[in-house]
């Protein structure tokens, strides 16, 4: 049994066999064989080696000229690796002694080597993993020729383990058979995370080397609530997690049922608004089902998934109009493009040394006014069809905000000239996610209709911590006194000017901080749809008087960990389902 900790990006608990998508591409169907078949299976393994070597030999002959002097020895080396007597002896021993199927035995033996290479510090050698994966793939392909199982027609539920999942891979998945996603890389906004949340499938990402640690067919447990993945669990652990998984599903269903149509109001009658963050238009119905009163953050980055060109006005407009119509009179806050130059080549992006401090979000938009205008025009036009608001990301100074608003006014003038209708009273807000913006909130608030605090970036920039970096991830603390002071001052400035302050970072959907934020006076919480019921439940279980007391205590604390522990403990006491 081995326990790994990653980033929990989609809640829920599952126990199933691992399906490794990376080097295998197909699943190892059988782990054990009958004792009487040992001889037959060894022959099958040897046949697969011969066949694989023959294939490579053909490649070598056919492409001799094209491969050239340098590549031909590589093909020869692969042929020798396939025939490596030492490896062969180990595989055969595994078949004989452990009654492993040849597929599983190969996977186990070779995985040990890729793991050893993975820890080599020399990238030249870590790249050799590809050579080993290559021969593994060839061997497995030839072994499985007939019984090969495509990912598209899985017969039993699996937990998908991969280095990373590409959009095309996720398209071909039979999602009814996928009980969880586990990947080496990625974060909360990675493609895997989004798909998982949309489907309500647990997911843990950022596990570094999980795709090497697990062999296809291994039983694994995924806990998307805590970010744990357990490899080869014992019976007792399986039992425990299966029970937890069931009770989580029941708890979630009950919560949704219990809270359906109920407002997010404290016991002493203070109402707050719960919005959803949405990455894709398809998520809007899901958000409404979970009780979202609107969309507090509609991300538009998915529109920019063709790196060679910016989306057209039509492409923007069709999406915005559709969600406006779907949400009827509920508010939708559309955020303009929030990508960095590292993600988008439109306008010729240079490779940046430090993309998080580089040309991203509003900075990119201001430098590429044509594509920015296109997006603004589409948002304005769509504002005719529903309650749409507009939000600029990553504002760090007053002049940036003024520049962006100037372009917006230009676009409005042009629409008026063209006699194209739009909502003249369209509300304009900004994200507060750069510490400088938080500190000049008093200046910024006078020129906008609302703020939305983006805690992920605010924390990362304020504490100078990249939480994707293992060495410093523990320094990423939402309850750090500096972060709490920034948040409080932003909320206070909003209140002083009678303008709404929302929060759309992860912190607003994390139940640990719900009472604190409530007490600080946050009026609008925007979060991933699936956590809305939890947050609503907590809000309905406290009084504002209590929340104010708790937040005062948190503000006086000098230690982030103590604050988080205290908040967690207090919340679990008033809503015992949480712990």
């Amino acid at each position, binding site marked *: 049994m081995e326990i790994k900790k990653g980033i929990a990006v989609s809640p829920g608990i599952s126990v199933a066999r691992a399906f490794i998508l990376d080097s295998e591409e197909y699943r190892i169907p059988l782990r054990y064989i009958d004792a009487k078949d040992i001889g037959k299976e060894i022959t099958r393994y040897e046949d697969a080696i011969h066949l694989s070597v023959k294939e490579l030999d053909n490649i070598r002959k056919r492409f001799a000229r094209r491969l050239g002097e340098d590549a031909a020895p590589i093909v020869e080396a692969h042929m020798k690796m396939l025939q490596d007597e030492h*490896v062969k002896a180990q595989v055969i021993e595994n078949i004989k002694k452990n009654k492993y199927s040849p597929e599983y035995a190969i996977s186990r033996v070779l995985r040990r080597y890729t793991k050893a*290479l993975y820890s080599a*510090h020399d990238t*030249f050698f870590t790249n050799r993993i590809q050579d080993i994966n290559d021969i593994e793939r060839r061997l497995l392909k030839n072994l499985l020729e007939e019984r090969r199982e495509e990912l598209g027609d899985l017969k039993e539920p699996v937990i998908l383990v991969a280095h990373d999942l590409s959009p095309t891979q996720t398209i071909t998945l039979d999602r009814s058979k996928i009980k969880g996603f586990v990947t080496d890389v990625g974060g909360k906004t990675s493609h895997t995370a989004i798909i998982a949340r949309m489907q309500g499938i647990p997911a843990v990402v950022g596990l570094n080397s999980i795709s090497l640690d697990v062999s296809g067919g291994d039983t694994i447990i995924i806990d998307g609530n805590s970010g744990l993945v357990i490899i080869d669990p014992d019976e007792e652990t399986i039992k425990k997690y299966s029970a937890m998984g069931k009770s989580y599903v029941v708890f979630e269903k009950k919560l949704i049922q219990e809270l359906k149509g109920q407002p997010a109001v404290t016991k002493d009658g203070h109402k707050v608004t719960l919005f959803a963050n949405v990455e894709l238009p398809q998520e809007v119905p899901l958000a409404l089902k979970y009780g979202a009163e609107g969309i507090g953050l509609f991300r538009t980055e998915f529109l920019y998934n063709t790196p060679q060109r910016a989306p057209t006005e039509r492409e923007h407009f069709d999406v915005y109009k559709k969600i406006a119509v779907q949400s009827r009179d509920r508010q939708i806050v559309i955020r303009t493009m929030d990508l960095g130059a590292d993600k988008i080549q439109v306008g010729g992006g240079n490779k940046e040394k430090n993309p998080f401090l580089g040309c991203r979000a509003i900075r990119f938009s201001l430098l590429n006014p044509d594509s920015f205008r296109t997006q603004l025009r589409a948002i304005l036009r769509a504002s005719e069809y529903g309650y749409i608001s507009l939000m600029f990301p990553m504002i760090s100074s007053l002049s940036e905000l003024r520049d962006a608003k100037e372009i917006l006014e230009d676009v409005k003038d042009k629409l008026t000239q063209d006699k194209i209708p739009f909502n003249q009273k369209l509300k304009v807000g900004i994200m507060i996610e750069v510490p400088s913006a938080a500190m000049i909130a008093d200046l910024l608030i006078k020129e906008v209709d609302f703020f939305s605090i983006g805690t992920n970036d605010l924390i990362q920039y304020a504490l100078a911590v990249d939480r994707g970096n293992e060495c410093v991830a523990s320094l990423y603390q939402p309850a750090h006194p500096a972060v709490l002071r920034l948040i409080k001052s932003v909320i206070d400035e909003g209140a002083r000017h009678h303008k709404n302050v929302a929060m759309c970072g992860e912190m607003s959907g994390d139940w640990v901080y719900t009472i604190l934020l409530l007490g600080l006076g946050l009026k609008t919480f925007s979060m991933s749809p699936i956590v809305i019921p939890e947050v609503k439940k907590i809000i309905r279980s406290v009084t504002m008087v209590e929340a104010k007391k708790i937040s005062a205590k948190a503000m006086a604390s000098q230690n982030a960990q103590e604050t988080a522990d205290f908040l967690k403990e207090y919340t679990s006491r008033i809503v015992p389902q949480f712990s």
Partner: protein
Amino acid sequence: MQLEKDVKITNKLGIHVRPASRIADTANKFKSKITFIKDGFEVNARSIIELLTLAAGQNTAIKIKSEGEDAEAALQAIVNLIESNFEEKNNGNKKRDRGFTGD
């Protein structure tokens, strides 16, 4: 008979795929068991894949152990191969200052 020798890998890319294959070929010609040891990590020299997992780049110190009736000849053959930089062209230490082309 058992013999040992400390050597340094001098060719530019270290024991990568082709050198590993040359070493394994040579080791397979002898009856003796030949082991490569790097920082206490031992691998069988008959196995290309095991040799690769040593991740022995340029200037890595390796201990070679040879055990068996033809231990001496086997050890000598392997050492010669390493000292010749695996007969790779323009790949040795001497040519290094002509510019490192990288991968």
